[in-house]
């Protein structure tokens, strides 16, 4: 049997060969420079609040990608972690006067705990059943957000104070707030990068590729999956908490199932299982929502058309296709 008759294998060889790896590293460096450069100068070129919104969603999408892209688990309930943490942080800041950083940590702890419960239940099933369980549990969280007295029901939690960072940096100043958000995003992004490139991340990718084989090699795949789920939920919570401080409110939109759908869209558009893809995807979706808001009812049509175009023309997403075109294995 001739190996070259199998295009997948030929491609695999090309991608993971030493040349591909070197090129990959160089390209990653380029992307890192671009990303850091963008984060540093963006508030002077674009509207800062818009960029903050972008960074929050980018972190959310990256956290989600950790689960779907690197572990192969499609969660349809990530809005629960994003929105839930937003409410917790919002309430802590408003009612207890907690400073921003402990507030975000509280939100993260909440979403980690919630992620543990949801994850522990959901990883017992696979594929569509996994997605349905996460969706169902996320809907429970949504209805809690709708009903509990402290969330303000459909009015949302309003007027969250931004407060002072470390007691002396006034976050009501737009630039201070911006660089705080940028720092949170970079830390979150680095954590995800580190996880992906750790031995733990390698095991996750092994589970994604072939779970029975990972199991037969002696890995307790359930524990790895649960750990990945909790990590992803925690980081999604950090994104939600930060967003609630930026916008000074937490609303039902954050916990609604459509938000779970949106984050899937972002990740798919940018590139599933790529490092920088979700950031690009979040940029596309948030920018479309923002800049097309003037054209009225066509926003949804344009976003839908973009998604269809993505599925038909570049299935690996923007960054995924780019990586393939440049013949590098990870970007």
């Amino acid at each position, binding site marked *: 049997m001739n190996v070259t008759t199998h295009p997948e294998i030929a491609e695999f060889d090309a991608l993971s060969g030493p040349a591909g790896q070197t090129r990959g590293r160089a390209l990653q460096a380029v992307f890192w420079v671009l990303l850091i450069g963008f984060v540093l100068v963006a508030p002077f070129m674009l*509207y800062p*609040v*818009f960029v903050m*919104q972008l960074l929050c969603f980018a972190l959310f999408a990256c956290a989600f990608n950790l689960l779907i892209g690197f572990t192969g688990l499609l969660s349809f309930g990530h809005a629960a972690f994003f929105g839930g943490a937003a409410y917790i942080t919002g309430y802590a800041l408003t009612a207890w006067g907690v400073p921003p950083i402990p507030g975000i940590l509280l939100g993260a702890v909440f979403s980690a705990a919630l992620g543990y419960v949801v994850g522990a239940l959901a990883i017992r099933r696979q594929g569509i059943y996994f997605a349905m369980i996460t969706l169902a549990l996320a809907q429970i969280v949504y*209805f809690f957000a*709708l*009903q509990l007295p402290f969330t*303000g*029901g*459909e*009015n*949302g939690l*309003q*007027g969250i104070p931004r407060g002072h960072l470390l007691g002396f940096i006034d976050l009501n100043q737009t630039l201070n707030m911006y660089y705080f958000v940028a720092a949170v995003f970079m830390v979150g992004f680095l954590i995800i990068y580190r996880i992906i490139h750790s031995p733990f991340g390698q095991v996750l990718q092994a589970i994604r590729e072939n779970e029975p084989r990972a199991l037969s090699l002696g890995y307790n795949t359930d524990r790895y999956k649960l750990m990945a789920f909790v990590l992803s939920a925690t980081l999604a919570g950090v994104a939600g908490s930060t*967003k609630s401080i930026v*916008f*000074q*409110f937490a*609303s*039902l*939109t*954050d916990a609604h199932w459509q938000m779970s759908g949106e984050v899937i869209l972002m990740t798919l558009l940018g590139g599933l299982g790529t490092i920088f893809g979700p950031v690009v995807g979040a940029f596309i979706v948030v920018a479309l*929502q*923002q800049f097309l*808001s*003037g*054209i*009225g*009812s*066509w*926003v*949804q049509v344009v976003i839908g058309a973009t998604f269809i175009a993505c599925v038909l023309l570049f299935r690996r997403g923007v960054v995924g296709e780019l990586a393939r075109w440049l013949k590098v294995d990870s970007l």
Partner: protein
Amino acid sequence: MKAITKLCATAAMVAFSATGALAAGGISNGVVKIGVLGDMSGVYSTGFSGPGAVAAVKMAVRDFGGKVLGKPIEVISADHQNKADVASSIARKWIDEDHVDMIADLTNSAVALAVQKLASDKHVITMATGAATSALTGKECTKYGIHYGYDTHALPVGTATAIVKNGGKSWYFITADYAFGHALQNNTAAVVKSLGGKVLGSSDVPLGTNDFSSYLLQAQASGAQVIGLANAGQDTVNAIKQAHEFGIVQGGQQLAGMLVLISDVKSLGTDVAKGLQFTSAWYWNQDAASRKWMKEYEKFSNGAAPTFPHAADYSLTMAYLKAIKAAGTDNADAVRAELGKMKINDFFAKGGYIRQDGLLIHDMYLLKVQKPKDGPWDVAKVVRTIPGKDAYFTLAQGGCPLVK
């Protein structure tokens, strides 16, 4: 020499302060910008907000003459997609970069509360029409926030008062199970009880329920004279449709909608919604001025019929522009003071005035669904006019922190 320098300095100072005063007195940036921030594509885009609201504001600007104090008036609009974060970031950009002077519409309570708060921090007037929550002028009231048209207190109270006075003493509620639905039910039940009626029971229905049969059967079995629908939008439409299938109205019970638009009735058909009573802030066939406005609006918006929030959008734009003219500036403090002083009496707001907490007080109307007589949109008739002071909560009841 020193004297001359001093003189020059003084002259310069006088000149500077004069230009400063001029800027404060005139129109900032040489244009009055009105931003219509609404739901252009979602569930509220046909009735409460949408292109119809933008058309109403633009028509008001046209009728005002397109200019105020010699400066042009510009209308911009955006779709907040019912997302408070999208709305908030559009509003921030409008205020910071586009120098929008007033934001109107703000359908969706979460959006309205978020934008009203943020706009007030930045000294910009907001005039919410589509949003229902009475918190806008209650606990969450702000210095520059105005609620124009209706709220979760005025609508049910108007309906309940009229129905109880007409003999509908015993009530059963079908309530959307979240804060909005409970607010509607509590406000209505309070009125029913205060007028000597009684509440026989209620069913809490999850938001977005399609099957109302078990709730309707309970309501039917309760023997109540009136079934109050403390919900909105698709929930109300579904409930009314199924009540028709169960023959509830034919069985002698009355249906009372707490938040119904004529566009809902139109989509249901007057046969299905027959006998339904609901309160509206305005009805196009209530008098000659309203009919005339309706005709003009249909011409202006290529045949689309207006709902009461659209009429409110027109009315508030007029009021806002008149206030700028009277104040001689578009400075938010001066315009808000002027809005508080003026009487608003047009086809929409009868005997209207804006209270200190930002709430527009004006007459409301109890409507009853009937077979159309004057064209396809004549789906109801005005049964009773409810004076503004009876419909809205008092300053003390609202609990606005600005009111002392």
